[in-house]
């Protein structure tokens, strides 16, 4: 019986590997940039920020400022957004039993896009209103999808997805109308719609972190129940779990996290699909592995993508959504092919 190892538990070596990947991406993100910072000095500087530790990193004040006010907030934001989008994607895929579900399925993107467009039309560059407007738009869109997706026998996956498509079309139409009606700086609006990680100090991280962390806690608590949900609703119920209740909590949490991520970074596509699928291919399908690993690897992926976005056309910057889509779309097709082969 010793050979009969249960495969759902996350084993330490895998977890350590994912952590190492995230750490490597973070270091890369901190060290790559127009102003060179010695790696050893950067590491010592970060460690010295921990409470109770006082070390001399040997960095100049300018280097310290770049590190602490520009690069580190951006890397942390990337990790936060990447982790949230990947986790939310995996969660949606679990509760809807649909491998292609992603955080934008329920109209989150369209809703946030509409909110952002309104913010842009009121205030040229979007301004401080932007994250709030995007957030409100995303929550409204998901609320609309969820209400329309009700069917007499509860909420079926199909009606919900169809409602998501309808809501997306409607919100996109409104958004396009507004863009034509009012004088908007289309260039900056599109840069937001394509997704970007640009920070002013720590304010974006502070805006998104509480929601992202709350969402992550709720989703991760449900990891074993999502494995039960892989059966159909009736079998899930016969095992003593109310599938609708699990779905409501997980969808709410995933939407909250996605809205928070979208509000600070725009629409970064494909992270919610690429990362969970890679994790499944490498480490198995159990959500007890997929969820925590998607979180860590999602963070690492987006930080690395941001490094690419910053360096490919330096000194200019690509929208990070372009990088994730460039990597993600071919990968998505690869996943489809592999899936077809194995079933």
């Amino acid at each position, binding site marked *: 019986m010793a050979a009969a190892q*249960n495969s*759902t538990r996350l084993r330490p070596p895998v977890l350590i590997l994912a952590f190492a990947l995230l750490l490597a991406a973070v270091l890369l993100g901190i060290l790559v940039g127009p102003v060179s910072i010695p790696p050893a000095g950067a590491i010592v500087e970060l460690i010295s920020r921990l409470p109770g530790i006082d070390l001399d990193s040997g960095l100049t004040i300018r280097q310290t400022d770049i590190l602490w006010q520009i690069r580190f907030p951006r890397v942390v934001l990337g990790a936060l957004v990447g982790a949230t989008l990947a986790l939310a994607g995996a969660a949606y895929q679990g509760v809807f039993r649909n491998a292609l579900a992603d955080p934008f399925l329920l109209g989150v993107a369209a809703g946030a896009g509409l909110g952002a467009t309104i913010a842009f039309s009121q205030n040229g560059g979007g301004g401080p209103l932007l994250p709030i407007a995007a957030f409100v738009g995303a929550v409204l869109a998901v609320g609309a999808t969820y209400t329309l997706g009700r069917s007499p026998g509860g909420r079926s996956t199909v009606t919900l997805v169809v409602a998501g498509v309808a809501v997306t079309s409607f919100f996109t139409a409104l958004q396009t109308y507004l863009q034509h009606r009012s004088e908007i700086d289309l260039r900056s609006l599109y840069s937001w719609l394509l997704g970007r990680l640009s920070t002013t100090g720590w304010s974006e991280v502070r805006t998104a972190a509480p929601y992202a962390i709350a969402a992550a806690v709720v989703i991760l608590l449900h990891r*074993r129940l999502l*494995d039960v949900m892989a*059966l*159909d609703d009736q079998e899930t119920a*016969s095992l*003593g779990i109310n599938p609708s209740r699990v779905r409501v909590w997980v969808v709410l949490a995933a939407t909250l996290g996605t809205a928070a991520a979208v509000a600070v970074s725009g629409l970064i596509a494909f992270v919610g699909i690429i990362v969970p699928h890679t994790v499944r291919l490498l480490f198995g399908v159990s959500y007890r592995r997929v969820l925590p690993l998607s979180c860590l690897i999602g963070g690492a992926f987006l930080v690395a993508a941001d490094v690419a976005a910053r360096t490919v056309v330096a000194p200019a910057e690509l929208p990070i959504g372009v990088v994730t889509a460039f990597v993600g779309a071919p990968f998505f097709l690869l996943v489809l092919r592999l899936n077809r082969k*194995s079933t």
Partner: protein
Amino acid sequence: MSTVVLAGVGLTLGGNRILESIDLTVEHGEWIGLIGPNGAGKTSLLNGIAGSLPIEGEVRVGGRLVTSLKDRERARVFAVVPQAPVTPPGILAIDYVMLGRTPHIGYFQREGSHDVNVVEAAMANLEIASLAGRRLETLSGGELQRVVLARALAQEAPILLLDEPTSALDVGHRVGALERVELLRRDRNLTVITVLHDLTLAAQFCDRLALMAGGRVADIGQAGAVLTEGAMRKHYGADVVVMDGPGGSVVVVPMRSSRSRLAPSRLIGSSDSAE
């Protein structure tokens, strides 16, 4: 203990009357077979007993109303094996069997060593310990059937509800599957309710048969009394020959109908004309 008592059970789904005033008592440790033609309401009755359909009337287990049980309590009373269980690809057999422990594991907790022991014992009991590390999609029909049964066993519920446990199996595996259910029933003193289409096997394994037709229990009793040529013609619209089998059991042999042999075009309507 786990005597199941149904009183006045009815069910309406989407405007259709599915079940009508069913009274039925299944004794503790008894094996009841639900038989009857397609659409008679057998699966609905099974799901109604398990509490997953909004039935009228009362279902009591050991005196307690099933509707008064919490979700998890109910799942510790009934283990249900549907006709076509969902077996998600990529999942290992042992992890699938572990899903049966769900009602015993706290909502946000994970399995303990006791749960692992129960799962391993259930798999050993059904002689599938060697399949533990196999993915579900690589298993044969017979292996999969045992894995699904092991999941129900790991649930440690006193009442086992099986919907057509043999439909996907060849004749050898059919007998083997029912033989395993019988061993488990004796071993663990389980109450078993199964939907079965194979009347001859139902006659051999079940203590009593409940013949369902049109959402009602048309007849209930020992196989020899329920499985008559007249009842088969009336409720199934089928011509059968009922013979005495070895060991006092009865054997139901379907016969090609004389009517359809003469006029094949009437075959489609022939089952309705028996009403």
